[in-house]
C-alpha cells in the first residue's frame, strides 16, 4: 500500500464505511443512558451482522482446498451495462476452510485466506482492454465485450476455418475439471493447435516418478496423521508443497493427536525451510544427494534385515541394484557426497524401521536438481521398502475424477520444457503461431530469462489474455478479456492429492461480479457457438455451469451416491456441500513382489550450471510462504505478512550462512549482487544459521516488473537468473541447479518484523 499520508482516507469515505458497516451492525446507542456509545466497549453492544456462509473452492494453489465464504450484505460500486452505480449485494467478507471438505477439513493456509483480496483488488482489470501503445508499454484502452469478442473472433475464425496459416496456442496454468476440459476441447477443435500448461511449481518430477514407481501420475496424498516417523527430503510440506493444509492437519495429529504417541520428523535439506524448522532433527545435506540418502537408508534396512528388499516390489525394482542390496549406497560410502554422517543414516534407518508406519517425502528443491527423477524414484522405493506405499501412515493415492479430458486429440503438453519449446518456436518463426491465448500463466515472470520468453512473445501475431491483472505476460497482450474472480464465478475442481477420497469440488458464485468481467469458460463457450462446426458439437453447453452440471451428471452415473435419490439431488447436494467426495478408499499403489516394466534408474550426480571455481555457491530459490510462486505478490496481506523464517515483509532477501558472510565481508541487510552465468540480481542479505555455507537461498515471488501497485518493482526475481537446464527424464526446469557468485554492493535494507534471531540475546556474563 502506498504511504498512507499520501492517501489519507477522506472523512467522507470513512463515513461511508461506517454507513456500510452500520447497515448490518447496529450499536445499541439508544435507550438507557448507561449504554451510550463511549461508556462501554462498543463491541459489547454489537449486534452481529447477518452472515451467510457459501461454499467455494480455493484457487491460489493446486491443493484445491474447499472454502466457506462469509457473505454479508453491503453497498458496492459496480459496473452494470457500462454504468457505474451503487448496488446493495452480498459481499464476500472472509474465506475459511470448508469443514466438510475432505482435503482441508475447515482449515486454510494464509495464502488461501488472502485469496479474498484478489476479488477486491484495486488493480484488477475491470473491463476488456485493447492494447493502444507499443507491446509491453502497458498502454491499453477499455473496450466493450462486444468489440473484444469481435476482434478475437476475427482472428480465431480465420484460424478455425484454416484460412490463415498458423496454430492456435492456448497457454494456461494447471487447470482441472470442466474448466480444463473446455479449454482443451476448444483448442483441440482447431486443426492446428497446441494446449500448453505451465506453472512454476507443477510437481512434474514427483508426478513422473510416481507414475513410474506406483503408476499414479499425481503427487502423493500423505497420511501424516497415522505416521510415526517422517523422513522428508527438502519437501516444504507444512508450507507450500503439494497439499499443505491437509499435510498440516496430519502433522498436528502426528505430534499431539494420539495420546501417548508422538511421531518423529527428520528433515534433510541444505537450507532450513519453515517445515524443516519443525523437525526433531534437521540435517543439511548436499544439494542433489537426497536420492543417495534415501538409498543409504534403504541399504541399512535391507542389510540389517529390518526389511526384505523384495518388499519394495516394483517401486524397488525401478532402482538399479535394488535386489543386490544397494551395497554401493552403504552409509560410509555416501557420507562424503551427502554430507550426512554414516551413523546418522544408520540410526535413522533403524528408528524408522522400529517406528512404523514411517514415511519418506521428497519435494521442492530436492525434486528440482538435474538428477531429481532418480532422487524421487529412490524415495518412492524407500517408501515401498518401509511398507508405506499405499498404506495408512504412508503415501497414498486416491482415484481422481477426470472431467472428460483427453478426448480432444489436441497436442497437449505441460511443464517448463513446453514453454521453452514454444518460445523457441515463436522466436524462430513467429507466424507459425496464429493466435496465443493465455490464461492464468505468467511465463515471462516464471521462466529463466535465458529462455527469452518475453522477447519471443513480443513477436507473436496476436496474444489474447484472460488475466485479471496486468502482469509481465498479460502486459504483452493485444486483447485482455478479464475473467471473473473465483468467488464471482462457478467453480469446479478435481484435486489429485490431499485426500484418498475422490474429490470433486463445486460451488456456484459466492457473490455477484464487481466489474465488467466474464468467466473464461463462458467466453470460450460463446466463441465456440459462434465459430460453430466441430466446436459447437464438442462444446454443447451454453454456459460453464451447464458444463459443470453435465460433469456431475456423468459423475453420478459412474459413482452413484447413497445419499441422493437422483442426479438432481446429487447436483444440488454437491452445490450445498461444496462438492462431492467419494468413500475413503485409497487406490492400490504398490504390491510387494511386483515387477516393474520401466527401465531402472541409476544414480548420477546432480549437475550444476557454472564452474565451481568462478561460481562457488549453490543457488537455491525456494517458494515463498506468502507469495508462493509470485502469483500472490499483488496482495497487500501477503506482502505485509512476515515470512515465517526471515520475518521479512514487503521485499525480498538473500539468505546466507554467517561464516560465508564473514568471509565475504557481508553484513546483515547489506545489498549484494548475485551473478549466475545467465544473469545478475541485487537483493539485501538475511544472515541466518539455518543454511549451509556453500548455499545461497532466495525466496521466489518478488521482483515483478508489472504486477499491481503493491508488487511492481519490489525486490528481485531469482527465477530470472536460473540456468535453462531441466530435470533429466521429465522436462521440468531444474530450478535448483544453478551456481552463483556473490559480492557486496553496499548497504541495503530489509524490512523485518522480528527484531531478533535468537531468544537469549542479553549478555549475562558479568563484566
Amino acid at each position, binding site marked *: 500500500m502506498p504511504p*498512507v*499520508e499520501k492517501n*489519507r482516507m477522506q472523512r467522507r469515505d470513512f463515513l461511508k464505511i461506517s454507513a456500510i458497516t452500520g447497515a448490518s451492525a447496529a450499536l445499541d446507542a439508544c435507550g438507557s*443512558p*448507561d449504554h*451510550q456509545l*463511549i*461508556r462501554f466497549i462498543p463491541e459489547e453492544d454489537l449486534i452481529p451482522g447477518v452472515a451467510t456462509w457459501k461454499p467455494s473452492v480455493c484457487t491460489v494453489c493446486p491443493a484445491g482446498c474447499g472454502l466457506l465464504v462469509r457473505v454479508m450484505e453491503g453497498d458496492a460500486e459496480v459496473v452494470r451495462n457500462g454504468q457505474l452505480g451503487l448496488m446493495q449485494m452480498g459481499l464476500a467478507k472472509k474465506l475459511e476452510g470448508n469443514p466438510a471438505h475432505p482435503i482441508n477439513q475447515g482449515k486454510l493456509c494464509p495464502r488461501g485466506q488472502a485469496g479474498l483480496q484478489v476479488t477486491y483488488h484495486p488493480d484488477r482489470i475491470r473491463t476488456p482492454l485493447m492494447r493502444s501503445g507499443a507491446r509491453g508499454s502497458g498502454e491499453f484502452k477499455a473496450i466493450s465485450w462486444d468489440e473484444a469478442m469481435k476482434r478475437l473472433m476475427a482472428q480465431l475464425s480465420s484460424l478455425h476455418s484454416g484460412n490463415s496459416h498458423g496454430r492456435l496456442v492456448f497457454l494456461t496454468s494447471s487447470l482441472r475439471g470442466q474448466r480444463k476440459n473446455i479449454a482443451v476441447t476448444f483448442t483441440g477443435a482447431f486443426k492446428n493447435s497446441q494446449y500448453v500448461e505451465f506453472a512454476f511449481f507443477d510437481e512434474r518430477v514427483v508426478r513422473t516418478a510416481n507414475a513410474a514407481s506406483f503408476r499414479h501420475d499425481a503427487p502423493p496424498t500423505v497420511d501424516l496423521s497415522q505416521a510415526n516417523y517422517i523422513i522428508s527430503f527438502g519437501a516444504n510440506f507444512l508450507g507450500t508443497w503439494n497439499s499443505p493444509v491437509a499435510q498440516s492437519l496430519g502433522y498436528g495429529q502426528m505430534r499431539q493427536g494420539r495420546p501417548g504417541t508422538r511421531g518423529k520428523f527428520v528433515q534433510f535439506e541444505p537450507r532450513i525451510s519453515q517445515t524443516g524448522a519443525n523437525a526433531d532433527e534437521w540435517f543439511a545435506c548436499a544439494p542433489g544427494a537426497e536420492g543417495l540418502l534415501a538409498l543409504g537408508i534403504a541399504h541399512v534396512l535391507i542389510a540389517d534385515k529390518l526389511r526384505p528388499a523384495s518388499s519394495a516390489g516394483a517401486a524397488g525394482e525401478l532402482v538399479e541394484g535394488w535386489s543386490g542390496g544397494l551395497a554401493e549406497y552403504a552409509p560410509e560410502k555416501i557420507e562424503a557426497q551427502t554430507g550426512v554422517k554414516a551413523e546418522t543414516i544408520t540410526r535413522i534407518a533403524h528408528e524408522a524401521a522400529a517406528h512404523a508406519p514411517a514415511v519418506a517425502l521428497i519435494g521442492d528443491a530436492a525434486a528440482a536438481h538435474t538428477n531429481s527423477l532418480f532422487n524421487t524414484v529412490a524415495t518412492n522405493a524407500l517408501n515401498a521398502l518401509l511398507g508405506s506405499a499405499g498404506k495408512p501412515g504412508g503415501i497414498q493415492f486416491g482415484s481422481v475424477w477426470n472431467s472428460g479430458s483427453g478426448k480432444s486429440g489436441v497436442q497437449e503438453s505441460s511443464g517448463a520444457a513446453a514453454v521453452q519449446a514454444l518460445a523457441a518456436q515463436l522466436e524462430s518463426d513467429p507466424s507459425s503461431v496464429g493466435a496465443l491465448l493465455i490464461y492464468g500463466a505468467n511465463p515471462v515472470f516464471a521462466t529463466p530469462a535465458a529462455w527469452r520468453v518475453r522477447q519471443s512473445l513480443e513477436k507473436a501475431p496476436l496474444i489474447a489474455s484472460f488475466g485479471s491483472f496486468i502482469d509481465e505476460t498479460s502486459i504483452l497482450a493485444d486483447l485482455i478479456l478479464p475473467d471473473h474472480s473465483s468467488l464471482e464465478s462457478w467453480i469446479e475442481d478435481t484435486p489429485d492429492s490431499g485426500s484418498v477420497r475422490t474429490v470433486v469440488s463445486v460451488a456456484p458464485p459466492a457473490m455477484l461480479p464487481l466489474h465488467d468481467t466474464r468467466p473464461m469458460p463462458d467466453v470460450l463457450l460463446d466463441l465456440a457457438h459462434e465459430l460453430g462446426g466441430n466446436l459447437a458439437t464438442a462444446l454443447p453447453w451454453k454456459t460453464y455451469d451447464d458444463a459443470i452440471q453435465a460433469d456431475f451428471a456423468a459423475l453420478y452415473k459412474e459413482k452413484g451416491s447413497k445419499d441422493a435419490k437422483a442426479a438432481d439431488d446429487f447436483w444440488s447436494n454437491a452445490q450445498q456441500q461444496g462438492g462431492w467426495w467419494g468413500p475413503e478408499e485409497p487406490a492400490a499403489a504398490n504390491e510387494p513382489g511386483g515387477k516393474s516394466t520401466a527401465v531402472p534408474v541409476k544414480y548420477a550426480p546432480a549437475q550444476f550450471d557454472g564452474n565451481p571455481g568462478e561460481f562457488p555457491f549453490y543457488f537455491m530459490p525456494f517458494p515463498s510462504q506468502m507469495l508462493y510462486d509470485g502469483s500472490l505478490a499483488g496482495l497487500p496481506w501477503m506482502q505485509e505478512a512476515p515470512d515465517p523464517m526471515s*520475518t521479512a515483509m514487503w521485499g525480498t532477501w538473500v539468505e546466507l550462512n554467517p561464516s560465508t558472510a564473514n568471509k565475504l565481508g557481508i553484513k546483515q541487510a547489506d545489498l549484494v549482487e548475485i551473478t549466475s552465468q545467465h544473469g545478475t540480481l541485487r537483493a539485501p542479505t538475511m544472515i541466518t544459521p539455518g543454511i549451509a555455507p556453500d548455499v545461497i537461498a532466495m525466496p521466489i515471488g518478488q521482483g515483478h516488473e508489472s504486477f499491481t501497485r503493491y508488487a511492481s518493482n519490489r525486490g528481485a526475481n531469482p527465477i530470472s537468473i536460473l540456468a535453462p537446464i531441466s530435470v533429466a527424464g521429465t522436462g521440468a526446469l531444474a530450478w535448483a541447479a544453478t551456481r552463483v557468485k556473490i559480492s557486496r554492493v553496499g548497504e541495503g535494507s530489509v524490512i523485518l518484523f*522480528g*527484531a*531478533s534471531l*535468537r*531468544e*537469549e*540475546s*542479553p*549478555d*549475562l556474563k*558479568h563484566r
Partner: protein
Amino acid sequence: MATKTPEQINEDLLRPLSVVSPRYFVALAIFLAVVIVAGSMFGRQIYDGLGVTGLNRPVFWAFYITNFVFWIGLSHAGTLISAILRLCNATWRRPVTRCAEVITVFSLSIGASFPIIHLGRPWLAFWLFPYPSERGIWPNIRSPLLWDFFAINTYLIGSVTFLLLPMLPDFALIRDRASGFRKRVYGFLALGWRGTPKQWHRLETAMHIMAIAIIPVAVSVHSIVSWDFAMAPVPMWHSTIFAPYFVAGAIFSGIAALIIAMAGLRKFLHLQEYLRPIHFQNLGKLLLVMSLLWFYFVFSERLTGWYGNEKYEMSVFWVTQRGSFAPLFWTMVFCNFLLPVPILAIKKLRTITGTVIASIGVVIGMWIERFLIIVPSLTRKYLPFSWGTYRPSWTEIIITAGTFAAMALLYMLFAKVVPIIAVWELKAGQSVEREHLETILAASEAEAGAD
C-alpha cells in the same frame, strides 16, 4: 552594592521595563519564528497523526516524553530552590528567587504541554479532567498519568501563586511610577497593594506557608513523573529508586537552568551589581552537591542492575553501557559529572563563566539522561522478537527546539513587563543587612564604651 539607595535600586531594576534595544526585537523575532515553525509542525502532526514522528512499536514514547520529564525537571529550579532558601532565610537568595520562580512557571507550562503534544488524539486531552460528563464516565485514578494531571495542576497553581504574591508590591511600585494605560494595568495587577504593615505581614505569612506547601508538592510532582515509568513493568523502569532519583535529577537540572538564566539576565539587563559572583558561587556549590548526588543515584541504580544480572534488565543495561546507546550514555556521564565536578569543586574555577559552563553541561546531560531512561528500555522490552530502534523525526526535533525557543521567548517577554529581581525584597534585604551592620556596630561601640 551596599551603597545603593532604594531609589537607585528602583531605577536599575525598573529600567529594563522601559528601555528596549533593537537587539531585543531581533532575538524576539528569531525565537518567535522558531516557535511558529514548531507550532505549525504540531499542527501537521494533529492533522496527519503521530506517523510524522519517529515513534514505532515498541518505542511508543521518546522525544516528547523526554521533553516532558526534562521541562518538569527544570521547573524544580525555581519554586523548590527559592522555597528552601526562603525557609532557611538565606539572605543571598533575594536577587535570585524571582528569576528562579519564573523558570518554574514557564518550564512547568511547557513541560505540561508535552503530554498533550504526544497524544494520539490531543483534542480529547480534556478527558483526563474528572468532570461530571453526561455519560457518567470518569478518568481512571489508577493511572499515573492522572496522578500527573493532579500533581502538575497543583504544582502549577502553587508556583504561579508563589511567583505572583511577591510581585504585588512591585506592581504597586510600577503603578505609582507609571502613567496612563500602564498605570491602569499595573494598578489592577497590584490588587490594591498599599504597603500597610498588615499587608506586609500577611504577605510574609502567606509566603511562608506557600514555601512549606510547595516543597512537598514539588517532590511529589517529580516522584509522580518518575512513577509514569516505574509503574510499568518495563526493564529498568520498574524500579523503586526512581522517585528520589528523578527528584534529585530535577533539582540538579533546575539549578543549572537557574545559573544559565541568571547569567543571561546579568549580561543583557546589566544587573552585574545585583547578581554577583557570590550568587553563582553559592548556586555552584549547590550544583556540585547535586552532581555528586546524581552520580550516587546513577551508580546505585546501575550497580543494583548489574549485580542482579536479570536477563531482561541486562539487555537494557548493556545496550546503554556498551551498545548503540553507549555514546549517549558516556556523554551524559561527562556532562553531568566529569565536567561539572572539577569546575565546581575547585574554587578558582567556580567563577561565573565556570558555573555557566558546568550548567550548560548539566542541562544537556540531564536531557540525555531522560532520553536514556525512556528509550533504551523500550527498545529492549522483554521478548527479543519485538525489540526495536528509534530515530527522531524532524517534527520531533523541531518541536523540541520550539520549546526551548518558547522558554527563551517567554522569559524575555516576562523580563520586559516585570522586574526580574524582586525590588522590595532586595530593598528589604538591604535594610536587614544595614540593621544587622548597625547592631554589630552598636555592639562593638558598646563594648568599646565598656572598656
